[in-house]
Structures are given as structure tokens and as C-alpha cells.
């Protein structure tokens, strides 16, 4: 495991992407295949689940380090990472590394899942005797699943593609989806030939770039296909032969188990198909908010009750494969036409629809229509070049997202928490409040990002000097800092005293010019969300006048 520990250390220390890529490539070339496959598996975003619960791990650690559990928690707060905390608290006596990565995972990690507490404890004691000090952190990173090493899956594919001399996109397909180190080997990944890849795997998703220039710079309106930008989960729905198939998320996770009603559509679809689209919460009135969809997320095999209460649909917007033929290199316009033809042939009762196109003659008219976005429950427009291929990843010039501007409100920092990782030991996680009718500050959001490093340092210093109370890891702070917060929407929430929860709140800027009295009022936020009663009345169902949105 020592080579892996060295890789981990180097990737942690190297700051330039290219140096990191070189280092990873070097490892993949030299490492025994049985070890390298694990590195591919972890860097693909997989983690070993259910090896141990955090609480149990902390209690083992407390016993081993001969410290009370509360002190372990204090340390965890300071360090910001449990794996690192363990590596700092468990004193390693081992001088030499004795096991390969593969052996360590198979003997010290995987068996934990089937063990009872006592047996698991004995196993940890053995592991802690076995690991050298440099192996401590990487091992516990694998255990706790916080294993990122700053290498994206894309970069892993690049490194592998250099070793295999195969295109990164092919590698990406080979390591997409659910696989284990028992059913995929380095030989499979690095296979030189075999362009005929398994049809059940998703294609790398084509991602839209944010539209930063003026929309007019895109040229002729007629060259672009315009759709609403849906607020759901991006997914590819695939069929193989014999009524089988898969539903893949953009993170290339197989998510069919969470949406059985979509898998039930598969037998009605032609074989060798791949649709790109969006899973949406969809009621009788059309699209529902993302918060409704969240009730279905991460819930595997949902019962009929929740399926009925929180129905979903798959809104298709691209056709990537039909009867085994790869269409990604046909122009968007042609793919669209074939998609429309296909969708017309599908039975009406299926929860599969097509994302309608929006037609206008000028960009100015589109700009006007874009203002409907909030009422429609969409995030703006998607602009797709009619002659573009279906690209892998974020390729400029093909797809743009032309989002509506976020809501903005001035809020007061009322409490803070230490950050994690790079921000460990800095107060970077803030709770933000606005005024309610009784003149109290009520929390409506938490925000982690948006300040410059300079600002973070200043805010951190302010917080340390103005702590007024301690609630576990949370420090209440004398209200003084005012931040302008951008967010995408607001929903009613029972969790917060304010009754409101914000979507994607982030710090837009620090309003050093504002006093807390000038911060916004809760009713303003509720107004943004369309939550004030008066505003709720009279709003009819949000459907397209052409009837396109009615799928059921």
C-alpha cells in the first residue's frame, strides 16, 4: 500500500493539474493491476459503503487513543476531516508497509461490513498495528469515503487514456456506471481495440456552458433550438434488448431503483435506444419544484404511495442512439426531428414526454419570454446550436444555458461554523438571517461560498472576536456582517423557524457599506418565492398555452 500512500501524498502536495495528471499516469503504469483497479474505482467516485458508522469509528478511536469521545469530536471539528483526525490520533508503531492496496482493502476494509461490533473492533486494532504512519491517512480516506485527491473522473480518464492509448471518451464509457473490482479489470479498461462497447452504458453527457456574452452575439435566431431549462435531474434512459435497460444520472450513477415507473417504460421503447433528458417532479398541473423531486431522491424502491403522491416524468430532449445506431455525430436538428417522430409513436400513458421547443423570431422576443421562467418553474432557456454534435462534457459553442438572474437579498450573519478540507480551522460556513415582523433576526439560509480568500480571512477574524455563544460546533456571532445573498428560489420549510428554505444560496458580495438594520425583511423573501398569500391566489396552473407541457 506504500505506493498508493505515496501517490496520495504527492497528489495532495502537487498544485498544478498537469503535474498531478503525470503523477497519476506514472502510478497507473507502474502499480500492480490489482491495486490500480481500486484507484480507478475510487477515483470514479465510488466508495465502500456500510463498512462502519462514524459514531462507532469515533468510539473505537477514543478507546485506542485513550481519550474521551467528546474530545475526539473537538479534534474532528478542529481538523475538519475524520480520516485525518484518526491519522493524527492513532500512533503508528509499524515500521514497514506489509500489504498491497488490494490486500489491505480486501482484508481490512471489505470484511468490516459483515462483522459485528466486537469483531469489527478487533479488526481495527489489527489494522492500526499494521499501517505505517504514512499509510494512516490514505487508508482512512478510503474507509470514510472522503476520497477525492483532487482528481476528477475526467482527469482519471485522461490518465488512463494515455496509458492505454485509447480515446478518453471510450475510457469514460468503460468506467461509467456501476461496476466493482471483481467484474472489471485493468485489462478491460486498458483494452486497445473493441470499439463495440456495451450498449447499456451511458454516453458522456453534453453539458451547457453559461451564456456570459449578450445573447445577440450568438448570431441568427434560426440557427438555434431553444427550450426551457428544466429544474430536475439530468439523466439518460437506455434500452438494451429484451425490454431491459438502465437509467443513468449525470454523475453516471445508476438511479433506476429510485424511479421504477421510468424503468417500467422500457419494454414500450425500441431496443438500442438512448434518450437524454431530465427527470422532473410532475403533477397534474405540470412541473413541480425541485424540492418535491428531492422527496424521491436517494430513496430506493419507493412504494406505490409515494410514487402516487410524488409522481415524476422523464422529459426527453435528445436522442443519442436508436436501434443501436450512434446519433451523437448527427446535427442537433436531425436528432430533434427523429426524437419527435419517436415520441409520437409512444403510448400516451407513459410518464415520458418531450421538452417542447420555444419559437420566437428575434432574441429580443426570447428575452421577453425568458421572464416567464419563474412562473413556469423553469430556470431560463437552453440554447442548442442546430448544427452541433452531441459533445462530451462542457464544449463551448454547442449548448448554452441562459438562466434567469438569481434573487438577491441582504442578510445578516448570525452564526458560523468551521469549514472543512482546505477551509478547516477557518469560520467559513455562515448562517444568515433576515428580519421578521417582530423585529427579530430569523435564519433563512446557510452559505459556504462566494467570498475571496482575503475576505474569508477578515470575516474569520471578525467572528473569532465576536463569538457570543457556543452550540456544539456552531458559534453564534454578534450580528454585524451583512452579505448580499443570491439564491434561485424559496420554499416553505418546517425545519427553519422562519418557515422558509432557500435554494442554492451563496454569497454574492459582502455589503460592508450596509448596517444590519438595512438587511432585508422576511416578507421580501416570501414575496420572491411567491409565498405571500395574496400572491398565491389567482395563479393558474403553469402550462404552456400550446398545451405542450401536458403530458398526462
Amino acid at each position, binding site marked *: 500500500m506504500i505506493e498508493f500512500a505515496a501517490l496520495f501524498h504527492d497528489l*495532495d502536495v502537487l498544485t498544478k493539474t498537469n503535474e498531478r495528471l503525470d503523477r497519476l499516469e506514472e502510478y497507473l503504469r507502474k502499480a500492480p493491476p490489482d491495486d490500480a483497479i481500486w484507484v480507478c474505482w475510487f477515483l470514479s467516485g465510488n466508495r465502500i459503503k456500510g463498512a462502519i458508522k462514524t459514531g462507532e469509528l469515533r468510539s473505537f478511536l477514543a478507546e485506542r487513543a485513550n481519550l474521551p469521545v467528546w*474530545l475526539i469530536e473537538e479534534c474532528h471539528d478542529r*481538523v475538519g476531516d475524520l480520516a485525518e483526525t484518526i491519522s493524527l490520533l492513532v500512533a503508528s508503531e509499524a515500521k514497514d508497509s506489509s500489504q498491497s492496496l488490494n490486500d489491505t482493502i480486501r482484508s481490512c476494509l471489505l470484511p468490516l461490513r459483515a462483522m459485528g461490533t466486537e469483531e469489527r473492533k478487533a479488526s481495527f486494532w489489527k489494522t492500526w498495528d499494521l499501517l505505517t504512519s504514512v499509510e494512516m491517512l490514505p487508508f482512512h480516506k478510503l474507509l470514510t469515503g472522503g476520497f477525492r485527491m483532487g482528481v476528477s473522473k475526467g482527469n482519471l480518464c485522461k490518465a488512463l487514456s494515455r496509458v492505454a492509448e485509447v480515446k478518453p471518451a471510450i475510457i469514460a464509457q468503460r468506467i461509467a456506471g456501476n461496476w466493482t473490482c471483481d467484474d472489471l479489470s485493468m485489462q478491460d479498461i486498458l483494452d486497445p481495440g473493441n470499439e463495440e462497447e456495451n450498449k447499456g452504458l451511458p454516453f458522456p453527457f453534453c453539458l451547457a456552458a453559461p451564456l456570459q456574452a449578450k445573447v445577440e452575439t450568438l448570431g441568427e435566431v434560426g440557427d438555434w433550438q431553444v427550450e426551457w431549462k428544466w429544474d430536475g435531474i439530468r439523466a439518460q434512459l437506455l434500452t438494451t434488448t429484451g425490454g431491459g435497460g438502465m437509467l443513468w444520472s449525470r454523475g453516471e450513477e445508476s438511479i433506476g431503483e429510485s424511479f421504477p415507473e421510468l424503468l417500467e417504460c422500457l419494454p414500450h421503447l425500441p431496443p438500442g435506444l438512448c434518450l437524454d433528458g431530465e427527470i422532473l417532479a410532475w403533477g397534474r398541473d405540470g412541473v413541480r419544484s425541485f424540492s418535491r423531486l428531492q422527496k424521491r431522491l436517494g430513496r430506493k424502491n419507493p412504494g406505490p404511495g409515494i410514487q402516487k403522491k410524488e409522481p415524476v416524468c422523464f422529459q426527453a430532449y435528445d436522442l443519442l442512439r436508436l436501434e443501436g445506431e450512434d446519433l451523437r455525430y448527427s446535427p442537433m436538428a436531425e436528432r430533434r426531428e427523429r426524437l419527435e417522430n419517436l415520441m409520437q409513436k409512444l403510448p400516451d400513458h407513459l410518464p415520458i414526454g418531450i421538452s417542447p421547443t420555444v419559437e420566437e423570431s428575434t432574441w429580443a422576443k426570447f428575452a421577453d419570454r425568458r421572464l416567464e421562467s419563474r412562473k413556469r418553474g423553469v430556470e431560463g432557456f437552453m440554447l442548442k446550436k442546430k448544427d452541433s454534435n452531441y459533445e462530451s462534457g462542457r464544449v463551448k459553442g454547442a449548448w448554452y444555458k441562459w438562466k434567469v438572474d438569481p434573487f438577491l437579498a441582504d442578510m445578516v450573519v448570525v452564526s458560523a461554523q468551521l*469549514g472543512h478540507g482546505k477551509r*478547516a480551522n*477557518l469560520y467559513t460556513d455562515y448562517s444568515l438571517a433576515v428580519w421578521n415582523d417582530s423585529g427579530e433576526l430569523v435564519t433563512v439560509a446557510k452559505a459556504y461560498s462566494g467570498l475571496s480568500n482575503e475576505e474569508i480571512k477578515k470575516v474569520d477574524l471578525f467572528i*473569532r472576536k465576536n463569538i457570543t455563544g457556543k452550540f456544539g460546533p456552531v458559534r453564534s456571532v454578534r450580528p454585524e456582517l451583512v452579505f448580499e445573498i443570491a439564491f434561485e428560489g424559496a420554499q416553505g420549510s418546517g425545519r427553519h423557524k422562519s418557515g422558509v428554505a432557500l435554494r442554492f444560496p451563496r454569497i454574492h458580495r459582502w455589503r460592508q457599506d450596509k448596517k444590519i438594520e438595512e438587511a432585508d425583511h422576511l416578507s421580501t423573501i416570501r414575496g420572491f418565492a411567491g409565498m405571500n398569500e395574496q400572491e398565491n391566489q389567482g395563479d393558474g396552473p403553469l402550462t404552456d398555452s400550446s398545451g405542450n407541457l401536458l403530458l398526462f
Partner: protein
Amino acid sequence: MKNEVLELRREGLYCPAGDFYIDPRGNVARAVITHAHSDHGRPGHRSYLCSDSCKSLLKIRIGKDSHVESLAFGKRTKIGDAWVSFHPAGHILGSAQIRVEVRGRVWVVSGDYKPQADQTCEPFELVQCDGFVSECTFGLPVYRWLPETEIHQQINQWWAENSGENRPSLLFSYSLGKAQRVLAGLNKEIGPIFVHSAVYPFLEYYAQAGIKLPQVTKIERGKDYAFEDSMIIAPPAVEDSTWTRNFRSARKGFASGWMAVRGARRRRNLDRGFILSDHADWNGLIEVIKGTGAEEIQVTHGNGDALTRYLREQGINCSVLAGASMRGEEEA
């Protein structure tokens, strides 16, 4: 805190029997100083008392004309009704714990200290007392130091690797104490050694105290130097300044106890962090506190809550010195 020996006042710890303060702020008549760091030895007082080897260093901080008297380690002097003596704290050259005895009751104020070995200062001395005011900058068990020889090896190895690539090694370390401790461990065979002008003035007093340091060159404005395979020691305050532009190709490191936590290093965009501290680590704090035999412990300098609770659970009468600064949290 208020007892028969010491009480906490706005300016700092005060001994009514001797009418003096220890490491005070503001402007007082008699200041007894633990060591020459600027958050302990501040300018503006009418008279100072410190250890012999602290005196010259302190004068650099507070001005040559200040009235400073000094005392050899272990020698007792009577101030008013209080007996005062200095005992090595092992923090930096001349750093002292201050023992104050009033009518048979003994309190020791630790200042900053470390029981670990350090060839650049007098070794820490454990002093028996009734009450002990302890620093607790690194008051969590995640802070554990390796012997300094291992850290010196790490630094030399890093320097040698960088030299091999023709890159200077820019190592940030506090000007007084840490810089000298780093210098003492450098292998001068690897290349030339340069120091920032903030580090330089202290060196002659280290030499006077008989501490062996390698030959260094002070970097002066407007002069040209060949830095390729060199080691450059500079205070962390210049990290983001234009001064470091002279060393674009340099690898950057920082020698500090804070480097024990990865996030602290990564946040600074450093190539390396060396865990070298002039404070006691967790085990050091516990051993010393228990070793003093004191029946009452007050902790200061740092977030003392965890250490206090831990000691209390072991039946030790410990509390956080009320009004103490939160310096530890501000990454001193």
C-alpha cells in the same frame, strides 16, 4: 482569577504583594516579562525585569533606551513582599517561567513553553508550585510533535531536492526563535543560506549566548544574489508581499505547529508544511501540568476549553483564565 499571589487585571496578571505585572499591556510601572515575543514583551512600560539571556532580545522589541533589569535563571529576588525567580521555559532563547512566592504560596506563570529538546535555548525546567498558569496554544491531542532531529532531516531533504531542481527553498518561520531553531538544524553543505532582514538582528545575540548557527547572508534591497540552490528564511508575514516576488521559482514551506493539520497548509498554498513548534504539544501540556503538582491550574493563550474539561474529568482543578486572549485561535 484572584488569589493571594496573583489577580487578573485589565493590563494582565498582577501581583499585589509585589506591585508588578507579568507580560502586561498598556503602561505599568513594573513589568516582569516571560520572553521577548511581541505579544508578551510590549513597549511602553516604565521598567522591565526579565531573564539575563532575554534582555538583549527584549530591547530589540521595546527600544534600546527602555529600562530593563535582568536576573540569572534560578536566582531569587524580592519585589515588595513577593519573591520572584525565572526558570527556563524552553520556548526560545531566554524564555522564562516566572515563579512568584508570597507568604509561602507559590504560583508559576509559564509564558509560552515546550518541554521538548531545542538546541537554541535553555532546556525547560519543571517547577513545583501551588498554582500554575499554563499556556495552551496547542491544546488538542491532534497536536503531537516529532523529535526536532526528524524535522531537521525533513527540511534538509526538501532543501536538497529543491536544490537539485535549481530552485530556491523559501521557508517561512517566525523571526525570533523559530528561525534560529531552523537555522541550527540546516546542513550547510547543501547550499548558501539567506535570511530576511527581520530575522537578522537577533542572530548576534544567539551567538553571544553560545548557540552555534551557520553562516548566513542578510538579504538587502537593491543587491543581486544567486538564490538557485539556496535556503531563504523569512517571517510568515512577508508571505503575500512583493518581497517574495524575488523568488518566483522557489518552493515554499512553513515551519509551524499549525502545519500538523492539512487544511492549514493547503489554505496557504504552500508546497510543504514542517511541523515544528516552540510550544508544548498536547502530551507536553498534560505532563507539565501534572508534573508541577499544582492544586490549581489556569490556562490561557489558546482555546483552553477542551484541555480544561479533559483535566477536570481527571480530577484536576483547572479553568480557563477569564479574559485571556484568544491568540491561539488567531494562528499566532
